[in-house]
Structure formats: C-alpha cells, structure tokens
C-alpha cells in the first residue's frame, strides 16, 4: 500500500472566493455598486461629524451589507427599497427648513409624511401589518393546502411590515438629527427603539427560514411573538409616551452602542424565534399529557403557588398584589392560548413542518442567536470597561445576560456533543424564552442597576 497526498491537484484552481465572485449576477454587482456609492456619499458628507470608530463602522458596514445582499437575494430588494423610500421621506422633510435642520412639523400636514413615511406613522403601519400578518398565518391553518393564499398574504404582509419598520427606523434616525444639536443618534438607544428592532429582526430571520426551508406554517407561531412585542410597543407608546426621541445620556454616547445593541437583539430575536418553533415542535411531537403538564400545569403552578402563598400569609402590599394579579392575568392569557392550541392541534399539526425541519430551524436559530449574543455580551463588557470603569460589575443585566448565555451554551453542548434531539431539546428551547424575556424585560421591571435605559 502506498499513500500519497493529492498535492499536485491542490495546485489546481482553488474554489472559495473565485467561485463566490464569479457566480454573481448583474443585479448583484449593481447592488454592490449602489451600496458602495451610498456609503461613499455618506462618508464624504458626514465623515467630519464622526469619530474614527464611527467611520470604521460605516466603512465596515458596506461589505457587510453587500455580503448580506449576496447571501440572500431578497435583502437586496429590501435594502434598496428602504433606502429609496427613506430618501424620499427625507427629501419631503427637507423642502422646508427651520432653525435647526428640516422642519419636523411638516409631518403634521404633508400627506405622505403624515400617513406613511414619518417615523411614527411608518412604525404604526409596521404594527398594523404585523398584526394582520399574524392573523393571515393563522387563517392558513384552516385551508386545505399547505401553500395557501392566506399564508402567502401573511408572508407578504410580514415583508411589508419589515419594510415599514426599517423605513421608520431610518427616518427616525434622520429626524433625531433635525431636532437640535447633539441630539441625533442611531435609534437603538431606549426600550421603545429596541422593540422596533426586535420586531423586524425576528420577522426577517423567520422570513429567511421560511424561504430556505419552503415552509410557511411556522409564521403563525413566530409572528405571534412579534405581535406580542408590537402590542407592548403600542401600549408603551400610548400609556408611557415612550415614542418621543430622547437625547442620549453621557454613558450611551459611544460608538459601541451601534454594535452592542443590534448584536444583542439578533440574539434575543433568534432565541424568541427558536422558542416559537419549539412550541410548534412540541405540539406536533409531544404526547397530549406532556403538553397539558408542560404548557398549562407547570406554568400554572409556578404562578399560582406564590400567589396563594402571599394571599394566605400576607407579605405583599395592595399595589404588590395588584401587580401580581396583573401578571397572573397575562400569564393566564398565555395559558388560555396554549390550551386552545393543544385542543386545536390536529389542524395545526397537519400544517406544521416535520420534526426534522423544525429541529433544524430551532438549532440554526439558536446557533445564530448564541453566536451574536456572545459578541454582544463581549462588546458590552468592552464598552462597560470604558463607561463604567470595569468590564464586569455583576450588574443585574450583565448577570442575566450571562445566565441566558450559559443556558444556550448548555443547550448547544448537549446537542452537539451528546446529540440531544427531540422533544426534550424543544421543551428546553421553549423554556429558554422565559429566561430570555426576563433578561430582556424582567430585569428592567424588577431589578435596578447600571443598565437602566428603559424603565417600565
């Protein structure tokens, strides 16, 4: 026996980059040229207002945008469309100037701005479209075929909602720079803005999987979590006046924010997505008994026991009781929803994808989320080192981010090394949403710390 390495052949044409570039269509190159030109224009116009890091971020964003567009063709259309629409909105604003920049009061009387393109209006459209998208996806369960009209409409509306969310975000960014000096900033600085970010990121990730795996029925589940976020967003707007653009406190005035926050929300969005897929998975693959226990029994007991305890032994003030009752009602609503899905699972399961596909989506989503959550946490630590004087302070938000990270790290370990699959991993992914939501919202509600940028 004689063994040789295929050396002579390794001298042949290497694959990789060449194939990558040679396979590009004309539209790909046009898109890349547009991105580069847009970036160059932005750089020439605004470089003076940016520090060296922000310039680096702008330049770095260009190849990322090009690669994203090449990776998934639909993004090219989305990015170009959003850019064109936002530029149109900006040109409308710029027709009339006031003491500082464009006169934002035009959003009150210019028709297109008032009803479509000003940031608040666009985000309201986003909200409506997400609600409608969810509804259509659910109507799809009643249809006889898998690729029915209802889910196609749902999918289209989700795209439209993402489009409006991005337009609203970009226009809001522009508006923030027209209020006064030193106020403008990227709209990822408070709870309101990151909720918009969460909504469109989660939806966009889902739409990718929808196209990649040619499945439409998971939209009903994923859009549900997006709709919850939209519901919260509307409440936050109406009840708390949170939609107003606020200037940045000193701790947030840093280029790190542009990286840390989006990376974090890719994580949160992906984890939420995986949990909703996990819900579809357990509905299809768990026994009825396990479903009643896991979706109704356990959460019910977890909520009811402390409430009964407090009711019997006191220990909570009246307002504490009221808050607990409110939380109990919300959890009760979720449990009613669970009960309905369990009862209706014969219809739902007929449409949801096979265990294999759902499992794959779940894994991919958690992998993306975990990778970006790692980046986000590390960038957060680097930023904290500059802003607070220490890279790790065991601040509640940091600690909970660590807990979320460890949870998914354990999930991935069990899957990749021990080969954990099936309903157990799905239940775990579903529970992950509880941990993630607490890290995202619960910490702001119940715990105080350095990270108090979005109080509830």
């Amino acid at each position: 026996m004689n063994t040789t390495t295929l050396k002579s052949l390794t001298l042949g044409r290497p694959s990789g980059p060449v194939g990558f570039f040679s396979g590009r269509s004309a539209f790909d190159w046009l898109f890349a040229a547009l991105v580069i030109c847009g970036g160059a224009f932005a750089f020439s116009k605004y470089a003076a207002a940016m520090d060296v890091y922000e310039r680096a971020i702008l330049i770095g964003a260009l190849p990322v945008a090009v690669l994203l567009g090449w990776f998934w063709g639909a993004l090219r259309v989305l990015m170009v469309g959003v850019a064109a629409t936002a530029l149109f909105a900006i040109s409308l604003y710029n027709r009339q100037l006031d003491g500082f920049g464009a006169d934002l009061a035009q959003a009150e009387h210019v028709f297109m701005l008032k009803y479509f393109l000003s940031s608040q209006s666009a985000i309201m459209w986003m909200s409506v479209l997400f609600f409608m998208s969810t509804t259509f996806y659910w109507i799809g369960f009643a249809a006889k075929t898998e690729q029915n009209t209802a889910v196609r409409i749902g999918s289209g509306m989700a795209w439209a909602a993402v489009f409006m969310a991005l337009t609203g975000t970009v226009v809001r960014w522009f508006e923030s720079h027209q209020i006064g000096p030193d106020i403008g900033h990227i709209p990822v600085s408070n709870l309101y803005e990151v909720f918009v970010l969460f909504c469109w990121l989660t939806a966009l990730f889902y739409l990718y999987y929808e196209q990649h795996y040619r499945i439409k029925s998971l939209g009903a589940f994923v859009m549900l979590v997006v709709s919850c976020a939209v519901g919260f967003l509307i409440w936050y707007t109406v009840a708390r006046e949170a939609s107003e653009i606020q200037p940045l406190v000193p701790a947030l005035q840093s280029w790190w924010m542009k990286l840390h926050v989006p990376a974090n929300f890719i994580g949160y969005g992906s984890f939420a997505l995986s949990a909703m897929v996990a819900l579809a998975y357990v509905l299809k693959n768990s026994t009825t008994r396990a479903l009643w226990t896991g979706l109704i029994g356990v959460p019910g007991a977890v909520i009811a026991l402390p409430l009964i305890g407090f009711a019997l032994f006191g220990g909570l003030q009246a307002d504490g009781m009221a808050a607990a009752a409110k939380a109990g009602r919300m959890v009760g609503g979720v449990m009613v929803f669970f009960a309905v899905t369990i009862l209706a699972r014969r219809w739902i399961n007929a449409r949801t994808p096979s265990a294999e596909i759902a499992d794959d989506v779940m894994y991919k989503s958690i992998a993306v989320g975990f990778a970006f959550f790692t980046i986000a946490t590390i960038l957060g630590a680097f930023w904290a080192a500059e802003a607070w004087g220490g890279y790790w302070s065991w601040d509640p938000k940091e600690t909970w981010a660590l807990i979320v990270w460890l949870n998914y790290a354990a999930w991935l370990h069990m899957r990749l090394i021990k080969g954990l699959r099936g309903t157990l991993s799905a239940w775990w992914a579903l529970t992950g949403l509880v941990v993630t939501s607490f890290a995202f919202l619960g910490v702001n509600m119940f715990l105080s710390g350095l990270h108090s940028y979005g109080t509830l």
Partner: protein
Amino acid sequence: MTISTTGIEVRARSRGVRDSVELVSSMRFSISLLTVICIAAVIGTVVKQHEPFNNYVNQFGPFWAEVFARVGLTTVYSVWWFLLILAFLVLSTSLCIARNVPKIIHDLRTYKEHVREQALASFHHHGQAELAESPAQAFDRIAALLVHGGWKAKVQQRATGTMIAARRGTANKLGYIAAHSAIVLVCLGGLLDGDLIVRLQMALQGKSSYTGGGMMRDVPAAYRLGPNTPTFRANLLVPEGARASTAVISMQDGVVLQDLPFDVELKKFIVDYYDTGMPKLFASEIVIHDHDTGAAVPALVKVNEPAFHRGVAIYQSSFDDGGSALTLRGVPMSAGGSAFKVDGVVGGSTEISNGDAKMTLEFTGLRVINVENLSGNKTASGADVRKVDLASTLGEHLGSGAKGSNKKELRNIGPSVSYKLRDAAGQAREFNNYMLPVELDGQRVFLAGARDKPDQEMRYLRIPADADDRIDGWVRLREGLLDPALRAKAATRYAAIATPADKPEMAAQLGTTALRALALFAGAEPAKDRAAGTADVPQAGLQAISQFIESSVPEADRPRISDVLLRILNGSLFELLNLTRENAGLAPLKAEPATQNFMTQAVLSLSDSFFYPAPVLFELDQFKQVQASVFQVTRAPGKKLVYLGAVLLIVGVFAMLYIRERRLWVWITPAAIGPEGALSGAATKVATALSTTRRTLDGDAEFDELKRSILKGSS
C-alpha cells in the same frame, strides 16, 4: 473523532483519586458547576448586593438577614464558595482541554485513509455505483471535483483499488480549543481583577480595613495599600481646585485607602444638560502630577473616555459637592424670633440655638440647576378626557418622533439647598428649599420641602412671593399673626372698614369676631376642649377654624357661618398684612388681583406653616458652588487576559458553529469482471461515504449533491 465528554482516566493507585480526577474533568461536572453559578447569580440579582446590614434586616427580618449574611448571599459574587466554584470551573475546563487537545492534534494530522472499504457502507451517508469510465478516469474526475470543492485529500493505493480520504472544516476543532481556553482565560483574568486579589494583597502586606472616620491623611499606614499594588478598583474624590492622591476601596467591612503614584488635580468639573434636564455631558479637566518624574500631564476625562497614567485608568464615575460655600438666611417659624444668617459649607454642620433648644444644622447639598416638568400633565386642548379613544390616541402618535403628544413644560427653576436639622436626641429631619420662587397656578411661590424619614416624599410648603419677589412679605405677615397686639389692631381696622355705614352697631361684634378668627388661625386660642384635641396636632390654621365651627355651630348653619368667618379672616389678614408693611416702612397694598392672589396663597401657606416641622426655615441667600468629581481609578492586570479570552471566544464559537467538519471517502475499484468481461458497460465501482460531527439538513443536502457528482454517469 468526537470530543469526549467523560473525564480523564489517570493511572493512580488509589481508586478515589482516579474517580475524582475523572469527575472533575468530565462535562457533567462542568455543567453542574455552571448550573450552581447560574442559581447563585440569580440570587445575586434578586438580593441587592453590598448593602448595609440594616437594609437586609428591614427587608427580610433579623433572622433571615443574619442567615443570608452568614451564607454570603449579600455578597454572592465575592463569597468564598462562589470563587471556589469558579476555580473548579477553571480546573475542570483546563482538564477538559488537556484531555481533548492531543486527540485533536492527532486528528488534524490524519486523513483516516486506512479505513476499510467494507466499512463505508456502515456510514449514515453513503452511496455506491458502477461507472462506465475506467478507474483512472474516475479517479481523475473525482480528484478534480474534490480539489475544486476545497477538499484536502490523501490517496492510498491498495491492491484492490484506490481509497481517497478527504476532509474539510478542520478549523472546527481549533474552534473548540479556542472557545474552551477562552473560558479559562476569562475566569483567570476575572479572578485577578477581583475582590479576592485585593484581599490577598491586604493579607500579604498585613493591612486591614478601616472603619473609623476622620481626615484621609490621618489614617494610619496599616489601612493603606502602597502605590505599587497590582490590582485595585477604587474611588477618588477631587474637589475643584484641589488635588488628591488617595483613593478609597470599599470592602465588606470598611474601607482601605489606596495611595496612587500620582496626584490628580481637578481644574474644572463640567456638567452640561439638555433642554429636558437630562444630563448631556460630565467631564473633568484634570492635571496628573506624577510623583516620581514630577511631570504634569493635563487630561480631559469624560464618561466613555477614560484617561490612563502609569497603568492606572481614571474614569469619570460620578460627581459630588466639593464643599460649596453657602449662606443661609434663617426665618423663624415661631413667635418673637428675628431673621439671621448662617454660613457653612456643604458637608459641614453648625450649631444653632433657639433659647434652650439646641439643634445641629447639617448642610447636605446644593443643586444649582433643577429642571422640572411644570405642566402638571393637564390636557392642553381642554378636551374631555373620557372621549379620547384609542384611535385618536394613536392618531396623536403619528408624525415625527420628535414630539410627544403630551406637551411638557420643562423649566429650570433654579438652585436649591438641602439640609438636615438634628435635635439633641439625634433625630434628623430633611429639608429642601428652592432659592427662587416658581410660578405655580399663576402665583410665584417659594417651595420649602420637608420630610421626616428618607423614604418619604418631600412635602412642600408653598410660600407666596411678595411684590418684590421675596419671601419677606409673607414672613412679616406671619410674625404679625403671631403678635397679639398686631392681631388686635388688625381686627379693629377690619371692623372699621367692613362695618356697613348704616349699621355702626355691628362694629364691635365684627371686631370681636375678627379677633377671634385671627386668634384661632394663629393657634393662640383653643378651637375646642384641649382634652378632645390630640396633643401633637397644632390647633391652628384653617383646621382650627373648621374645628371651632364644628364644635360650636349647629350643623345646619355651618356652611353659612364658615363662609362668613373665612371672609372675615381673609379681610383681617389683609389688614394685618398692611399693618406689618406700615411697621416696615412700606406703602400699604391695594386690593387688586395680584394682592388677591398673594393673599389666597398666603392664607393656605400660613395655615400649612403651622405643620412645618421646624422652628426655623432656611432660605438660600448666597452660594459659591464648588464641585467635586468622583473618579474610579483602577489597575486591572487581568484585563488583557480577559480581552484575549473574549476574542478567542468569539472566534471559537463561530468556528464551532459555522465550520462543519466533514470527512469523505471514495473507494474506486475496477468492476468485477464477469463472464462478459468489460463488455458489461461497467468498468469501475465507486463507493463513497461521508462522516460529519453534526447532522443538519444542509449537511444532508450537501452530501446528496456530492454523491450525485461523484457517482455521475453511473450506469
């Protein structure tokens, strides 16, 4: 190869040693440790950390507070068992790396070309076909395909055929090493920069924590760490115009002083606000004076932009008062006193006496800018709130993000001073008074806040400003009210003016009633039986009048009588006001709307003033602000390790998740020559198999594609 998760098996004589080494280096052990860390971390976020012990007693009761403190739940992240778990985690992860690295290195070197051809069929991904091309042609085609596809391969010629062993994505395993060493590096770096090392340094240098008070320079060396201490995180307070070189490290049981190798001189502390009152900029212009070289290095420290000197990072942490000079004007709230001035600095205190009663006045703070929302959340349009439905509310939120639908009226209402008055028993009340009047409901008022306990809200006395925008008019009125002679004079005047010309006989009765009303209002006359009233509630103000009416007027007449009595009270107070003005040498006021407004607010605030919990009210007369900047100064040698670990972690995670390791084998052999010889059309048999550490749908699709290409043209 798969990464093994069981522990290392060492050859040791004792079975216990063997078992424990295996346990510590196993994945199940690390996962258990991580679970415990998670639980401890959750406790740490729920139980507030590093609070004074009394806070825990208030929250959990003395028993549980003691238990929690013993177990270390009040300082979870630096308690010994938590650090021990971290240490075990480091050990366990290191052993895990040590166990897997040799295998990984071996794996990186081999192509596994020795695999038996029969074994290929047992892989999950496998396929075989008979091809028309000759073995040599098949080999050339497949080899080109693999190389073009980015595979690295080795070829083994065997007697019966050719085995190609190819592989891709070996960086996945390097990712494993990167990510796991990252955990070790981050934990080690974190331990180096943590509380533990500070305590170790103290133990090595024989230092202990200090619990006493006094000036910093007087603290003995036993409580000071030297300037070469490798690790610390401390706070440094520098007042404007001053220098400091001693920072304070807070420990669980006191403080330790950290001497720095340089002085920080604060030239100027800059604080800037947005229109909304939100802080916009905190910055300190400092000069760093090096002790060894004597060099003076100027620097600007901002939030997010620290300065560095000799390995010590200087961060803008917060700000404080650096001993602003205050002049307060004491306005007596009891009869017979006169106004006086007190000088002091923020952070200091002074004794004041009122007859026998001695009190300590502690100057606690000065705020130069107070931005408040004065709109009171009224609906600007005056629309009926009940008619506002969701649709129109949403409609209000259309448009640009620059506006809220709720118009706020944000205004800087000027400086305020806060102080405490501590009585002989040590009980202190807190006060917060604004220097300038604020316009509320159309009347300019001075706000004087007071509270008994720190957890209460400030309750504000609203004292109307006089025509000169000063507090004096009200103070004179109050003094006059407490003076029986002036009260009598005012009552007489009021009676003279208010008596109708056609009923002169009413004058005497009116005078008596006015005097009675004034006396009741001033608290000089009991409203009802002393026995009935509670001792600690002063019987004065409007409350005394209503008590009087309740106790002496039949129910049916009460609304009418109280109306009359209030009118008489207002009228005589107005006369009293003018009397006090005359005594002060000022012209009397006319009954015009401005005076009316003043009187309305004055009556309310006089009535409230009887509940004011101090015999004297201090207004801010003059001040000279001296700010102090609080810096965090740190030396964190572990930071480099942590950052290296962090970068390795990102690289490792991406490599592990996104580089799939795959091995592919292709076995090429001449087709068995049957009775028809080569004429059967099949000249070559090709078998292929793929192994991957992770099965995904994408991996399946990739193999299907590969299989199609490799076995292309199969017969």
